[in-house]
């Protein structure tokens, strides 16, 4: 298990499991990781960003916001082969079908992700509920998940699209991360969250200049490049400050978590007819959402050989629900838009005990018509309050 339940705190509050690193130490830290693991970190790609394998610290783009593409694609790639098949033919007759299950790319493990944002890290816990549940265990997903450690970077400066505090997370949220790196002003604090995280850092202390355990900082020695000595208490206070400052930028005002109760009776509400209207029916929101996970399974074959692939799909597309008969149970954009909202904020809660949104804001940033999920939720909340008043 690698959910919150598996969180294995080595420290608890205080200095245990916490290290301090000078800002200059970052490149050495990254290179130290890269020397020992296959590291995925945010890289720039023609004005967009994504997690990709890096071979030196110089390639890493220290994130200021979430990456354009979500972390989920390292676990649920846009397309992956599930199995390969070959139909034997002899003398024009169709013979046996040979089926070869595909490896989920386990040979590439273990991997370390550096630079995930807390919202992305948290999204993995939600995906776990789907692909690693008691009902269903997805071999490919689980292999990738087991083989990947997550080092997050806390968000000292949340962006205008962020609302993680309304979805159960926060800019310094540790859920889903093995290690979290926090910018507390002049230095980074690096906190070990899980045992796996401790293992990641084990080989780096004493190797990376300017990186040491907070417990060894008791005398307040200055780090290289650092003029002032830093006492552990001061550093922990600086951390609290940074966290409070960041949280203050995004007060938890979006009615995201509590709304499932209200949504229960709103399936047929007339407000959907107004809310959906500007939606174009693309999948920019769903594909870039770190928690959206709908997929399609199809065969790609040439002659007698082929493979079965699983690829991203989205409830915003008419094809997603089109029956072979021609009937479509979600015939219009209204029904499809409602599905996305209801799935995230009502059905997912009913089925998995949480909402399927981490407040990363990617859908807000990327919607061509500025469909802002925050205002959609606010509207739904207001509408339900209004109808509650009139009943």
């Amino acid at each position, binding site marked *: 298990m690698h959910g919150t339940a598996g969180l294995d705190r080595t420290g608890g509050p205080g200095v245990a499991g916490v290290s301090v690193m000078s800002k200059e130490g970052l490149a050495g830290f990254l290179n130290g990781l890269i020397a020992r693991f296959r590291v995925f970190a945010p890289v720039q790609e023609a004005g967009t960003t994504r997690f990709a394998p890096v071979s030196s610290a110089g390639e890493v783009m220290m994130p200021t916001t979430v990456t354009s593409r979500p972390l989920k*694609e390292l676990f649920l*790639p846009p397309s992956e*082969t599930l199995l*390969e098949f070959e139909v034997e033919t002899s003398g024009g007759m169709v013979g046996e079908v040979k089926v070869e299950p595909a490896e989920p*790319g386990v040979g*590439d493990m273990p991997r370390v992700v550096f630079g995930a944002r807390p919202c992305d890290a948290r999204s993995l816990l939600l995906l776990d509920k789907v692909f690693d549940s008691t009902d269903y265990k997805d071999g490919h997903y689980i292999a*990738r998940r087991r083989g990947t450690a997550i080092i997050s970077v806390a968000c000292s400066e949340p962006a205008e699209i962020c609302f993680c505090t309304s979805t159960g997370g926060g800019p310094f949220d540790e859920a889903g991360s093995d290690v979290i790196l926090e910018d507390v002003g002049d230095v980074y604090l690096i906190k070990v969250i899980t045992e796996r995280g401790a293992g990641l850092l084990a080989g780096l202390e004493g190797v990376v200049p300017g990186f040491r355990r907070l417990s060894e900082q008791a005398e307040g020695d200055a780090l290289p490049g650092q003029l002032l000595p830093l006492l552990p208490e001061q550093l922990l206070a600086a951390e609290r400050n940074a966290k409070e400052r960041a949280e203050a930028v995004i007060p938890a005002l979006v009615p995201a978590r509590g709304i499932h109760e209200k949504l229960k009776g709103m399936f047929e509400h007339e407000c959907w007819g107004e809310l959906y209207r500007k939606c174009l029916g693309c999948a920019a929101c769903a594909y870039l959402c770190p928690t959206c996970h709908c997929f399609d399974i199809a065969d*790609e074959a*040439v002659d007698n*050989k082929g493979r079965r692939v699983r690829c991203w799909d989205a409830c915003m597309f008419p094809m997603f629900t089109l029956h072979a008969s021609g009937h479509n149970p979600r015939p219009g954009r209204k029904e499809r838009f409602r599905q996305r909202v209801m799935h995230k904020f009502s059905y997912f809660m009913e089925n998995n005990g949480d909402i399927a949104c981490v407040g990363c804001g990617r859908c807000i940033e990327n919607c061509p018509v500025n469909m802002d999920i925050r205002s959609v939720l606010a509207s739904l909340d207001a509408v339900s309050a209004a109808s509650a008043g009139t009943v």
Partner: protein
Amino acid sequence: MKMNQEGEWEPKIVAFLCNWCSYAGADLAGTSRIQYPPNVRVIRVPCSGRVDPLLILKCLQRGADGVLVSGCHPGDCHYIAGNYLARRKFAMLKRLIEYLGVEEGRVQFSWVSAAEGEKFADVIKTVTRRVRELGPARKLVKVREMQGGAGASL
């Protein structure tokens, strides 16, 4: 990739031939015993106007080294204007795929009438020579990507 008996690459060319003219032209070339390269796979279509640009792209995707579309001469289309309409589409398509970076000459067009057995053979010779010069198709080819093995890269 198609190899001949000597183990050398042989171009594979898909030819969409209009039923009313070029297809009959090919027939005539055959019955007149005019020699032309055996590299074309003929697909008979009712009119050059039927050839959707997507069909041409699909051929390239599926590994054709060259594609030829051949219809009736201007004014001779069985459906009056099918070839005129096709001409516009093909002019735009040809420029577009070459602009993309697909080699000039992979996709070609011709007018061959039912009486032009000789011309049909010449067209096939020209197209085959050109495609042979270009070598095996690589761009837009998906089949090879598929044969190249499975698995997501991540």
